[in-house]
């Protein structure tokens, strides 16, 4: 399988981030979320690759753990939402009828309910008591319907195409048609949905961190920004503190994006050329 | 007259570059209906684009040139570079699908008037348009309608009217009747013939339907795999085609009342991505010899005004 340049770069980035965030923690000397481990506001040096912040934490190690947690949260939530979106969208779009009406009503309900006000209400109820995973569950509930609708529209279009009739005349049952015929066309949408979800999870988690719903003691890409903002890092010229998570997010996204489009491109050009 | 000099038109794609028209040299005479025939991938639409001068990325004229000699503009050299200045007035284009060429939310008369540069519109323009439409035996009220209110056939006739309003010397029609019913098609083709007879301009008509070419063209141009294989008077080409491809193509078509067996041509046209050498039709040609596979035949004038690119035809002609 000949990989194109996009795919290679994307995989390299992802590998660095994933392996880095999983392996590097073994080399940590102290728990990065513990405050006051080091002198505050040190500039970047050999001992502290990105310096320290106003809480006396090593920015670099904090970032490593943050990336790990964000990735974990993002990937697990995305897996669930993408799976839910895929199945409900495909079934609603292809099968139609009352099943479609019920599922669409469900999707529309969750889309119409504004997530943020609900989250604010929840935060006042459970102030400080949330576990990290509860945040994930809440995000799943609000995240799944968006791509479900897109998948459903795609399934509706595909349903009318001739190869679906051909598949039926080849004896395929409804389930077989949905997964063998319709699914491949929906696959790209789902990959995009997956990436979008990871991004959405990270940003929403950061936003939640600001209003105090997320556990800000747990290092995530969002909580670094929270702490940096609370300590006015931009005004005190501690650019590393703010820039580190931002740059890390951008590169991470680039990595995921390049991998997915690179893979798609490779698969598409390979298909039909011996 | 339109002179094509070794025209090579290339498309740039992700996979690389491909020559959709690969070395075409011929002269299209004035005052005739010229049919361009060939099958999918032969390059006829690209050729039209080159003649019309619609060369935007990813299509480019990599080699060769096109020279236009338009009577009313004699003295000025017109080539691919400046042909754009003559669009609508001296050279116009009738597209295949009228529905996708007309703005669905604008009345036709507005779109008609839009053809003219602002400085040239007068109060009389609309009336001139109506008169012209009527002179073509079309209801002048049709131009007050929105495109979707007219039938496909009527719309296409309006497109023909729009394309010929300025009495251009050259009219290019790319499959103008393919999407239409056979009865409507006849009407539109007869309309084109009428216009050509009255204005004595040049119409270049692309169609995959050989029957259409038989009915209305004066000269025929046959393309295969980005090359022109035969060019001559329609009568001659249909009565005794010189190129094996032309002959096999015409013979494969059944007609009503004809009870003979007709066969198609085996195999399929070569992919333009491959390294092509020799005659491009050789793999499918029953008369192919080693010479055909090795050497590309030249486009020769075997009879006055009748060109063929085939080694076999050349020999047969010399031996007759």
């Amino acid at each position, binding site marked *: 399988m000949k990989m194109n340049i996009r795919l290679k770069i994307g995989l390299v980035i992802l590998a660095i981030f994933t392996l880095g965030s999983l392996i590097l923690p073994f080399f940590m000397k102290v728990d990065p979320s513990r405050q006051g481990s080091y002198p505050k506001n040190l500039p970047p040096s050999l001992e502290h690759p990105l310096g320290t912040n106003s809480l006396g934490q090593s920015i670099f190690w904090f970032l490593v753990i943050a990336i790990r947690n964000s990735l974990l949260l993002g990937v697990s939530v995305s897996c669930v939402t993408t799976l839910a979106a895929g199945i409900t969208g495909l079934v609603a779009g292809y099968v139609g009828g009352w099943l479609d009406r019920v599922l669409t009503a469900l999707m529309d309900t969750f889309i119409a309910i504004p997530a943020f006000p609900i989250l604010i209400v929840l935060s006042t109820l459970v102030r400080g008591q949330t576990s990290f995973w509860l945040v994930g569950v809440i995000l799943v509930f609000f995240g799944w319907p968006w791509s479900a609708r897109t998948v459903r529209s795609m399934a509706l279009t595909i349903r009318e195409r001739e190869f679906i009739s051909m598949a039926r005349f080849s004896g*395929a049952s409804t389930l077989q048609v949905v997964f063998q015929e319709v699914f491949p066309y929906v696959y790209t949408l789902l990959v995009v949905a997956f990436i979008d979800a990871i991004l959405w999870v990270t940003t929403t988690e950061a936003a939640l961190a600001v209003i105090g719903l997320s556990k800000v003691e747990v290092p995530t890409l969002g909580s670094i920004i929270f702490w940096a903002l609370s300590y006015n890092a931009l005004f005190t010229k501690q650019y590393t503190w703010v820039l580190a998570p931002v740059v890390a997010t951008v590169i991470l996204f680039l990595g995921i994006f390049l991998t997915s489009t690179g893979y798609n491109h490779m698969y598409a050009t390979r298909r039909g050329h011996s | 007259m339109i002179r094509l000099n070794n025209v090579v038109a290339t498309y740039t794609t992700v996979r690389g570059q491909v020559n959709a028209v690969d070395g075409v040299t011929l002269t299209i005479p004035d005052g005739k209906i010229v049919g361009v025939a060939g099958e999918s991938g032969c390059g006829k639409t690209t050729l039209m684009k080159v003649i019309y001068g619609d060369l935007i990325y990813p299509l480019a004229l990599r080699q060769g040139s096109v020279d236009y000699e338009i009577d009313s503009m004699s003295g000025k050299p017109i080539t691919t570079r400046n042909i754009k200045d003559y669009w609508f007035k001296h050279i116009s284009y009738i597209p295949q699908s009228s529905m996708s060429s007309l703005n669905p939310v604008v009345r036709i008369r507005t779109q008609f008037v839009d053809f003219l540069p602002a400085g040239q519109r007068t109060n009389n323009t609309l009336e001139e348009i109506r008169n012209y439409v009527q002179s073509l035996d079309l209801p002048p009220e049709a131009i007050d309608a929105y495109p979707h209110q007219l039938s496909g056939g009527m719309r296409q006739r309006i497109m023909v009217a729009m394309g010929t309003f300025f009495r251009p010397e050259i009219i290019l029609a790319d499959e103008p009747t393919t999407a239409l019913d056979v009865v409507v098609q006849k009407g539109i083709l007869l309309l084109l013939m009428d216009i050509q007879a009255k204005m004595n301009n040049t119409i270049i008509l692309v169609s995959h339907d050989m029957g259409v070419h038989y009915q209305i063209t004066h000269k025929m141009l046959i393309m295969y795999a980005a090359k022109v294989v035969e060019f001559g008077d329609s009568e001659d080409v249909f009565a005794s085609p010189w190129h094996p491809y032309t002959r096999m193509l015409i013979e494969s078509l059944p007609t009503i009342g004809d009870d003979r067996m007709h066969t198609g041509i085996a195999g399929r046209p070569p992919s333009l991505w491959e390294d092509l050498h020799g005659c491009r039709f050789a793999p499918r040609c029953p008369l192919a010899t080693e010479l055909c596979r090795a050497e590309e035949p030249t486009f020769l004038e075997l009879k006055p005004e009748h060109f063929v690119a085939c080694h076999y035809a050349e020999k047969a002609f010399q031996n007759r």
Partner: protein
Amino acid sequence: MTTILKTNKLNKVYRLGGLFNRIRIDALDDVNLTIESDEPVIISIVGESGSGKTTLAKVLLRLVKPTSGSAHVYDRLIVGEGEKPSNREFFNSIQPIFQNPFEAFSSYRTVDAYLFETAVRVAKLSKTDAVDAMAEALRLVGLDYRDVRGKYPNQFSGGELQRVSVARALIPHPDIIIADEPVSMIDASLRMNVINLFLSLKEEFRRSFLYITHDLATAYYISDYIAVMYRGCIVEFGDARTILADPKHPYTQLLLDSIPEIGRKWDAERTALSDIEAKEYQYTGCRFCNRCPMSEDKCKAERPPATRTTDGRDIYCHFA
């Protein structure tokens, strides 16, 4: 005698438009056809766009439910009130070929996947028998299994892909294959390969075909019976050669006059335009009365019944 095809008062009404602007289109209006034979036959349904021929195909393929009426194919009731075969029985008796060969297969799957599935799921063969059946079916259409295995649709030409479609349809040994415009999207030189295939499948392998087309020339070439449709109604039906050699219905005559045929030039009289297509569907009388040179008040008021003429055809005209 087996009833190859029998439709009884088949109707399909579509209602378009919003709350206040409903148009009613009778895509199929009281279609009655009876063809009985002991030998396999090829029946052509011929018409222009909007004639109802594709709707008829869809109804017979059970892709669309008729508003009323019934249809029998090979002595079995397939549509209408009464006991009908299950999907499995149906697919073993009737198989389709669609117009666009590239649309008929998913571009994400290999084409032999469909053949394999048909063999295993419809014809209920074991996996090893299925491979033999596929190879045999491909051989019948002139293709080698080794050339087809593992390939995706974009690796074939239109003609080859259509032949793969035919092979797939043959695997369950259906009684009849319904082909909806099977060659209109294939290049002219490759068309006859598929058409000749239908003929040989009928004669050597005893399959009947229902051939839906707008191309009268190929219909003449292969059909035993022909039904001409206009706006949802049959206007003429009978033996193909009799009708096409000597059409009696004014619409059939109009059609034959309008085909651009090689060898016979048109006479350049203009034909009546049909600009109010939707309205034509709502006529209570003959649908063709608006364009018919012979029409009288009677035609506008009353639907012409079928008249059986001396040469065995059904003609729907008051002046038969």
